[in-house]
């Protein structure tokens, strides 16, 4: 009997605030797992630190709640070592684009076959309301930026594209079914698949409930970088859907035969 989405929940009660967007992401993940009929025990969900990064424990699967900003390398190490597992990295905008920004760049380039779900609420929820890289320049409520960030907001999808990601999508916590579909496709995609999820923080940025009115589907699924660039550039940051899909060879490319080549001991002998 196929498992239902709820069978993929661990039963541990999330620490999230009532109304937090992250609940919907959790639902979408379990829906996608059910739809793909993955075996829980062959799945590992890896995260950093943040409200969003608490997610792994709430899924019935293996999980790793690592340190802040390092979900992607931990996930890549796991996947390269254990290609038999389905590996999904999750986390927040602070985790992924601030402290973890370098790993994001290089994960896109390296193209290990994992899914990365960034739950973007444009704020540091866990540490109670500082600006994140995606906070709007004009947001005045960031606790360390009383004059606003005075910085251009980070563009996750544009950066993913410029860094070489082959699968780029945007989802919205207000649309868990649509998001589940994106996650399903990302899991099916061979290579690094990035999903940028607008996931509201009701506590520190309550105005994000207005996102409902702003999100809109994007037309088509660009399969060339130029088309994707045009789409991402023209979009207002609220376009949902697959923004780019263009598989490249995954890393590691070769799985060399164990025992191949000369015996390493031979090289030392006198």
């Amino acid at each position, binding site marked *: 009997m196929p498992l239902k989405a709820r069978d993929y929940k*661990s039963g*541990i009660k999330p620490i999230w605030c009532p109304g937090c967007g992250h609940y919907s992401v959790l639902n979408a993940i379990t829906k996608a797992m059910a739809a793909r009929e993955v*075996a*829980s*025990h*062959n*799945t*590992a*969900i*890896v995260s950093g630190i943040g409200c969003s990064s608490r997610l*792994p*424990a709430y899924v*019935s*699967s*293996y*999980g*790793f*709640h*690592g*340190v802040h*900003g*390092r979900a*992607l*390398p*931990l*996930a*890549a*190490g*796991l*996947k*390269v*070592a*254990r290609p*038999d*597992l389905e590996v999904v990295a999750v986390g927040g905008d602070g985790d992924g684009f601030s402290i973890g920004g*370098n*790993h994001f*760049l*290089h994960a896109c380039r390296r193209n290990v076959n994992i899914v990365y779900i960034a739950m973007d609420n444009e704020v540091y929820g866990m540490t109670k309301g500082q600006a994140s890289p995606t906070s709007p320049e004009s947001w005045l409520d960031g606790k360390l930026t009383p004059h606003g960030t005075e910085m251009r907001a980070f563009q996750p999808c544009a950066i993913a594209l410029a860094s070489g990601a082959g699968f780029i999508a945007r989802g919205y916590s207000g649309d868990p079914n649509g998001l589940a579909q994106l996650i399903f496709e990302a899991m099916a995609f061979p290579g690094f698949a990035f999903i940028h999820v607008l996931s509201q923080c009701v506590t520190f940025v309550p105005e994000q409930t207005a996102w409902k009115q702003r999100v809109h589907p994007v037309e088509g699924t660009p399969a060339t970088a130029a088309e994707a660039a045009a789409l991402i550039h023209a979009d207002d940051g609220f376009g949902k859907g697959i923004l780019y899909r263009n598989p490249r060879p995954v890393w*590691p490319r070769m*799985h*060399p*035969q*164990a*025992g*191949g*080549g*000369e*015996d*390493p*001991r031979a090289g*030392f*002998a*006198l």
Partner: protein
Amino acid sequence: MTTLTLAISGSGGAGAISTGELLLRLFAEVGGYGMLKKTFSPQIRGGESAAILRLGDAPVSTIPATIDLLVALDWQNFARFADEVPISASTLVLHTGTDVPPPGVTPDNLLTVDAPGIAAAADSGWLNMVFFGMLASGLGCTCAAAETLLRARLEKHDDAVLDAACRALQAGFAQALPDPLRELLATLPVPAATAPGQPQRWLASGNQMAALGALEAGVRFVAAYPITPASDLLEWLAHHIDHYGGHLVQAEDELAAINMVIGAGFGGVPAMTATSGPGMALMSEAMGLAVASETAAVVVDVMRGGPSTGIPTKSEQSDLNLALYGMHGDAPHIVLAAQSIADCHFTAAWAVHLATRLQTLVIVLSDQSLGQSIQVIDAPGSDCPRAAVNSSQEAEPYLRYRDTDSGVSPLALPGEPGHMYTADGLEHGENAIPSPRARDHRMQLDKRWRKLADWDFGGHWAELVGQVDQRPVILCMGSVTATALEAQAAMAAAGREVAVLSLRLLAPLPTKQLATLLASGTRLLVVEHNHGAQLWHYLRSLLPQLAFESLALPGPAAIQPRDIYTALEAANAT
């Protein structure tokens, strides 16, 4: 034991290092022993360099401070080596005569060899090969053997180049040696062929041995970021890990590297990284994650001069503090030190065993001197310790962080049905669910401590040479061990017995064994290659009842046997 120490120096491109390497290999192939240390200027290319070799009729493991023979291919910038290639009154110096020693370098025994002329006569520009030929003949090797080695080394070059080099070699070999040189080389007996049944002899560096040991113990995943002097360890791995069916990832930085290693370890695949001080400093946060989440991870630190960027190409043992204490929170873990070039194999393998067996972080301290010097060693047995990833066979309910007697909790690996859990660096209960409660914290802290404190590390925790009873003891680790043993031998020759205890297991420190062993020593001299006496302070913190004395000297100059016996001859040194 008879040994001969020679240095070959020259400006960039003169081929000093390769001449030294060829000579050591040639001498080793006929049954001789020796080791070679390289020293470079900060220039990447075009800078001067020197190979310092010690050849012997028995195993050789240190380079003495004074040299018997210097072959100066040229004198350009030689002054910069003055510290490392000191010429004494008894040093025989060969040069080409085309330039003169710099001011301040006034060899008493200076011989001119017209190497450029000899090379030119052989229609070759390879004057370093002229010297190689002369030295090969003086050491009693055959020209054919030397030529075989040379051809293997230059295999990527085209034939014309190769032939020219060989002609210079032959011409040098054919030279009549000047008397002082002939006499000096003749002091070293022609090595006897190795007796059958003896262990096979290898020529290898410590970095290579650490890499091989790790692979033979079961490492199948490596992630690292290049850094001197660990890069060549990684390079060797990159070229050989395929054979074992593993993968090496060149990570974007050390933060990525250590987290990748933790990911692989979580997956049940023995994994390691190698780095040096600055890189290990960057790993500090994630090393704590390995401890808290109880994930196996091996970090090899090939130490160089510190602090900060320090002296990247030279040896020091000053990362001990960082290795022992460099994590926030109470984070007990294992720290090992390799004792010799050959022991890098065993210690790396043991690290892999302990990390997997005890589900924790193991730091292996090596240093630039062990890591990058090459030495003739007995081939390590392939019966080294192995990874021990034991997947759990627990009854229900499965508790990942169960508070067991041993402190080692049952480990499930991803892929096992029914044992799913989320590893966590947040404090957690036995069931792996985050918990800020005092009793859970205490239980997990106790458990993580106990699994190391109560573990039986067996006899590998140190190597003792000599008898402690009523004798002075030299305590040391890493590359200082060989020097200590040489000091011991020198003192024995002078009728004074001392013991040498080289520590392989630094943390958890086997305090009981140490206290028992050292109780009857008359003096306890801790010798280490750093400025702050880090090992001495550490031993005092755990064994304050013992009157340790300290001899701590920073790099880059190596500690010399005479530093040690001078300290032991002085009244209480501290």
